[in-house]
């Protein structure tokens, strides 16, 4: 009887593994499509704005990440990854804060709180009036980021599933040395 239960468990695990693999293939295809779309939209933005206006000249060599990866432990020591916006830990503010891009009239008399500014949208590296294709590129890459975290979690789950499968097969061999 124990063998039958074990076999049922093995089948269920195998089914789940195959389902996960299919999901992984699907997500990988979508990630590739998004990244390709993003790069093509960047090329379209270069067509509209000029080749040298969308390139390495526009970003600083040192930059603060806008997005961080958060690893969390689910059941049975399985790691899940999630993409999270940094700067969620806002400093204690008393009064209303000004948006980072307000046009300051006249010389600034009061020193602005320099502790930590709200992270600036990288879209503004290329100017304020950017063409639609640049915004589309940003959206594609952002989708790709989310997908990348999902894919990492899925791959973890698949590896864990495979090790579970191997463990169960070993147990089955021990229970039924002739039948396995």
């Amino acid at each position, binding site marked *: 009887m124990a063998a039958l239960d074990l076999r049922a468990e093995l089948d269920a695990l195998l089914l789940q593994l195959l389902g996960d693999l299919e999901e992984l293939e699907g997500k990988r295809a979508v990630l590739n499509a998004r990244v390709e779309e993003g790069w093509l939209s960047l090329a379209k933005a270069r067509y509209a704005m000029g*080749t040298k206006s969308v390139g390495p000249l526009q970003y600083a060599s040192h930059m603060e990440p806008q997005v961080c990866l958060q690893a969390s432990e689910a059941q049975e020591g399985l790691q899940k990854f999630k993409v999270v916006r940094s700067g969620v830990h806002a400093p204690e503010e008393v009064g209303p804060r000004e948006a980072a891009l307000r046009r300051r009239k006249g010389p600034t008399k009061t020193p602005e709180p320099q502790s930590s500014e709200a992270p600036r949208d990288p879209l503004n590296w290329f100017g*304020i009036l950017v063409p639609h294709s640049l915004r589309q590129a940003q959206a594609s890459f952002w989708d790709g980021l989310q997908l990348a975290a999902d894919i990492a979690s899925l791959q973890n789950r698949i590896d864990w599933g495979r090790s579970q499968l191997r463990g169960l097969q070993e147990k089955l061999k021990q229970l039924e040395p002739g039948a396995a």
Partner: protein
Amino acid sequence: MLEGAELYFNVDHGYLEGLVRGCKASLLTQQDYINLVQCETLEDLKIHLQTTDYGNFLANQTNPLTVSKIDTEMRKRLCGEFEYFRNHSLEPLSTFLTYMTCSYMIDNVILLMNGALQKKSVKEILGKCHPLGRFTEMEAVNIAETPSDLFNAILIETPLAPFFQDCMSENALDELNIELLRNKLYKSYLEAFYKFCKNHGDVTADVMCPILEFEADRRAFIITLNSFGTELSKEDRETLYPTFGKLYPEGLRLLAQAEDFDQMKNVADHYGVYKPLFEAVGGSGGKTLEDVFYEREVQMNVLAFNRQFHYGVFYAYVKLKEQEMRNIVWIAECISQRHRTKINSYIPIL
């Protein structure tokens, strides 16, 4: 101005007009584009370009060939031709050619200031500046803190000086202000160029004024389109529109109030020239507004060559050459990204 340009034009400018018409004849044809589109790698593209008038312009490039290098070399080649025209020109053609370079100078100034914001080294940026817009005070641009600084210390000797009237302020140069500065400088430049052509009169005014009016209207539409969803207020937006062109003044007032693409389309529907352009946006080819405007610009520039004895041929040639460079860069990008579905979205010229 003396009427009868055909009697006096060739004395001073006949040689250069002949030269620029010869250059125009060497623009890439539809067959050349078909060959380029079939290339599999950038090296293939280089080999195909060698059979055209471009010749061995990429011969000195080290491997690997990138799209950026192709673009830089093409720009250098155009700059060489333009410098030849400028060095051999007499007044008033030399002033006209100087006006043409001002737009590139404005781009270079903004590139340098943005680079200063991002703490890039001046040498790095100077390498990427447009060669047509080179001026001697370029290295000093990045030390300016405010537009008045920029004007008084650096740009007062350059041809850009007269365009600074609306832009003088003590505001610090951050991203929003640099964008406003760029658009205001460009607006003043376009208005000054338009006045110059109009005062010159004759065939040059007949040819150049509609082209410049279209440029002003195009800028108004594109600024409006790109400002949806940004911090730019409607009043600020209205100050960036050039004050001439078909849209001036009623259309510009309506455009300043527009809040999305459909409202903008309604404004364009009042004008017989722009209604069909807006209708061509979207559709099956997925054309953007910038694409339809580039197509119209190419049409107008090709028509400029149908008349003789005017300076518009020089302007039209440089703009057509720029469109050709955009086409080649687009094809090169599609090839290098191996994404060939949109490779035929270039605009054929001849």
